[in-house]
């Protein structure tokens, strides 16, 4: 079975995620886009694992999921805290840490 469609889908998902991170202001949406990118890479890992006939990629995908879960916990906590203090979920508003 050809792996090309999976890889194309992975690339598409990754690109959508990347553009979303770059252009969207809402922190929640940006966050979801990051998840999208992570899952796009998971798809690529799994596809290559299948193509090469070993389990390395599968294991990497599991790792990514675990890390992503942890990241969601921390990231959402930060977003909620910022929203509580600043009444805004826009990433452009939280720009105090600068020159």
């Amino acid at each position, binding site marked *: 079975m050809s792996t090309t469609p999976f890889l194309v889908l992975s690339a598409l998902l990754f690109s959508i995620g990347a553009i979303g*991170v*770059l252009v969207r202001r809402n922190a929640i949406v*940006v966050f979801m886009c990051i998840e999208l990118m992570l899952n796009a890479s998971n798809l690529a890992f799994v596809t290559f694992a299948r193509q090469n006939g070993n389990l390395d990629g599968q294991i990497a995908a599991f790792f990514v999921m675990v890390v992503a879960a942890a990241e969601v916990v921390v990231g959402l906590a930060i977003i909620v805290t910022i929203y509580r203090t600043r009444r805004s979920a826009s*990433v*452009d508003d939280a*720009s*105090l*840490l600068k*020159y």
Partner: protein
Amino acid sequence: MTWLSLIILIPAASAAVLLIGGRLTDGWGHLLGTAAPLASFVVGLVAFLKLRNDGDPLHQNLFTWINAGSSAPGNTPFHVSFTLLFDPLSALFVLLITGVGGLIHIYSIGYMADDDRRRRFFGYLNLFVAAMLTLVLANDYLALFLGWEGVGLASYLLIGFWQYKNSAAVAAKKAFIVNRVGDAGMLLAIMLMFRSFGTTSFAGVSAGMDRVSSGTATVLGLLLLLGACGKSAQVPLQSWLLDAMEGPTPVSALIHAATMVTAGVYLVVRSNFVYAQSQAAQTAVVVVGLVTLLWGAIIGCAKDDIKKALAGSTMSQIGYMMLAAGIGPAGYAFAIFHLLTHGFFKANMFLGAGSVMHAMDDDVDMRHYGGLRKLLPITFLTFGCGYLAIIGFPGFAGFWSKDKIIEAAFQDNVLVGIGAVLGAGITAFYMTRVMILTFFGERRWRENVHPHEAPPVMTVPLVLLAVGSTFGGVMLLDGWIQGWLKPVVGGEGQENLPMAAWLIQVIVLVVVAVGIAIAYLAYGRETVSATAPTRVSVFTRAARADLYGDAINEAVLMRPGEYLTRLLVFFDNRRVDGAVNGLAALIGGTSGRVRRWQTGFVRSYALSMLGGSAVVVLAMLAVKLA
């Protein structure tokens, strides 16, 4: 001789007790301070008698001072042992320093009686005596230099003794700084000695002198002369001496007339083996002496401040000694002879001036004196002895010593001789002026001044010094002084006078008489105004300004130095600092611009990460495909 070091140790210990003991010693400090130089005098006298009986110089090796370097081939070890040497030359100085110094200490008990820092004053005086004795008893140039710096320190402390007066503080600094210039010459001379001979002891240098080139000998002689000029206030380093009169009068008498300022003469005479090898250096000494003797005498003519008039005279008399010392073996003994008689009569006159000031409420302006001879009979008579001695009245000490120097000057060069005779005439003029303004004429006193004779503790030293001024000439009997100093300075030169000795004496006496007569006509018959006349000739104005010695120093040395400093400061600020600051500004400015990239917008960071990743991927692809 294990007891030789007592000569130095007694005053040094006394100074330590007085200066460390502080107020605890206030009650009896002046007595201890006076006893110390007198005890040294006794020890010195014993040593002198022993030297006269045995004929051999006394030595005492105290300790090894410096022992550096290995004696392996190609190395020159530096070894200095601190040894005291009591030879005929040192002996005369020891007796002068402790004898005249002791009398001045006694005088100071009375003079400083009202000063609540009298104990400290005596501490400093003892420190000076100890340092001066180290200077003359050393048998090594380095040890001599130790004493040399010690007397410089004591001089500084004593000139600035009344440091609450700004003028005194400034004068002390000036004396110290001008002396530094001379000391630089002295240091260089010592280094050159080590370089040339590998030793700095008198004996070692003396033995090595005939092995070095005449150029080295000349440089050595000139450097030593520079040191001597600084210490002895000779032109061109003369400017500090007149300001040094800010110190208490006993200091002026002891340090700036009788002893310390003659250290330069001692140095030249002690280094006779150096000057023997260099005609040029000898000539330089003669020129310095001749210029200074006229310079000081001219300044002395115009000063209304009695101490400054005497200071000009001191400069001039030391000029005579330098002149004699520069002439060579024919003059060394007479330089020392004049130094001794000058020590008596100048200390005598300075103390007399102190007595007058004491009577006049510390007024130093001679135009406010006048007619004091009836009220201060002892001061007048003793000062008179000093006066007759310095102008060279026949029979008095100065007559013999100055006459011998003038004879020696004529032997050397007729022009030098004429200069010396002229100096004698000017000396007669300004000393007669001092005499008339102070003791004769009408009373020009300020109000509320009630002159009174000084207490016996001050007049007794005056009388003793007057005796010395009167009979000091006995040292010349049978050529005693020449014979005594012969082991140190060598024999006399051959008699080679352009005219008979008696003729020279007559000429000198005539010139002196003319000087006295001019002074009498100008000050004895005319009424002297109580304020200094302002419409005076250009010469008087120059002499009042110390012949522009300070102005010359300022124009030739200070201003260019300031410009150089400013130039260096400019270079430092603009070039050195400029380069460093410029670099810092460049980096700071660049950073300021670069840090603008930190916008705080998360999305722009994400874009740069994405761009960076893309670049990395492209680079890897490019490598793979290439």
